[in-house]
């Protein structure tokens, strides 16, 4: 009997439209967080595309692209909750208006407040708050500070690995910027993220690989933002320990 790599036979049979329909069916039937997360990931490029086109049209408003993206993700989540796959309409056409609406509403609110924290600053603040929270902190303040610094560095590495694995990066190998060792490190980081327990893997993947803010991940996983912050810290601590020979 000849066998080849596991899963090839099943993959030969898979029909993407059916796989997606099955996710919708399970998500709507039992609110499964993993199905919701997979659907969210599936449609994130679509949301980003809308965010990109609106950002180019309204770049004069002074907001960052990251803000548009987060508003698009909020709209995507709302659309996912409201969509009824049994009606037979396509999700893209259903979600397009909601995503655009979410961005427009967000821009109006930002202008009203005139003090909108930009996404990049919010992201940095979320991470810092998460890592400096006192729960489970032990050791001297110097040790804790060092741990936070390493965790922040690990976060930057995760973002770098995310860019490398999302295919968004230019090939920098040719100019020698990315050494083989660094790419191996990115690969190890990415592999360790895959091994994190559920839902820590989802939090890290969404935040660092997909660039989703804590507040949107909280909506996605139906958890509080505080819980996401805890999971983020726990996951980074776990990764830090597993990757200590690199860091």
């Amino acid at each position, binding site marked *: 009997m000849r066998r080849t790599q596991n899963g090839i036979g099943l993959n*030969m*049979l898979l029909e993407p439209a059916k796989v997606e329909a099955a996710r919708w069916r399970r998500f709507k039937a039992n609110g499964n967080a993993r199905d919701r997360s997979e659907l969210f990931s599936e449609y994130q490029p679509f949301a980003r595309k809308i965010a990109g086109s609106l950002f180019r049209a309204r770049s004069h408003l002074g907001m960052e692209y990251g803000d548009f993206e987060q508003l698009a993700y909020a709209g995507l989540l709302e659309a996912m909750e409201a969509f009824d796959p049994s009606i*037979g309409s396509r999700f893209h056409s259903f979600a397009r208006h909601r995503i655009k609406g979410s961005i427009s509403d967000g821009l109006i609110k930002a202008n009203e407040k005139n003090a909108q924290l930009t996404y990049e600053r919010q992201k940095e603040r979320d991470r810092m708050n998460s890592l400096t929270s006192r729960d489970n902190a032990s050791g001297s303040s110097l040790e804790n500070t060092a741990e936070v610094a390493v965790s922040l560095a690990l976060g930057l590495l995760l973002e770098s690995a995310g860019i490398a694995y999302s295919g968004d990066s230019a090939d920098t190998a040719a100019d020698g910027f990315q050494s083989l060792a660094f790419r191996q490190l990115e690969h190890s980081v990415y592999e360790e993220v895959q091994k994190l327990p559920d839902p820590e893997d989802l939090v890290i993947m969404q935040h660092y690989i997909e660039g989703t803010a804590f507040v949107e991940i909280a909506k996605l996983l139906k958890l509080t933002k505080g819980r996401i912050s805890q999971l983020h810290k726990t996951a980074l601590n776990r990764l830090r320990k597993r990757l200590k020979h690199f860091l």
Partner: protein
Amino acid sequence: MQLCSDEEINQLVEDLQSGETNGVERLSSVLQSYPDDPRLVFMMASMLASKGDLVNAHKYFGRAIEIAPDLHIARFQFGLFQLTSGESNAALKTWALLDTLPEGHYLKLFATGLRHLIRDEFDDCVRFLQEGISVNDENLPLNGDMQMLIDRCRDQLAAAPEYAVAEEPSEEQSATSILLKQFGDGRNTRH
């Protein structure tokens, strides 16, 4: 359970195949009169699947084998639907009752072949699918589907595994889930 007469079914199949009527509407109206006729429910599942209404198709497939656990063609097709949706465990559960079919029955052979395929046992998969094709003279469109799978298995076996890439199913293949054809001579695959 009130069943649709053979005459009505024949007329329905004829209307649907003519393409002159809205199939889903026509079938829905007949289903209103015979909501528990598993053949009609299965036909609706197949039609919805062919139109891409996959969530509702799943519901009707499930309903068909719930009403008639021994409607084996529906059971086989539902399992195949689940398998192609990435729900292999559900497919295996659905197919479990096909093991009660007599040895050498084409649906049992096809299901066995596909079980081997899930486990990447391509040689055994090809063997069982071929055997199924050789004995299936009841449901010829299904032979075409299985032959396509055999061809892909052979390609897989011929290629180095590290270069093997899963292909998207062709339109022609997807269209085979339009099972109206099966309501010809073999429409009553029940044992």
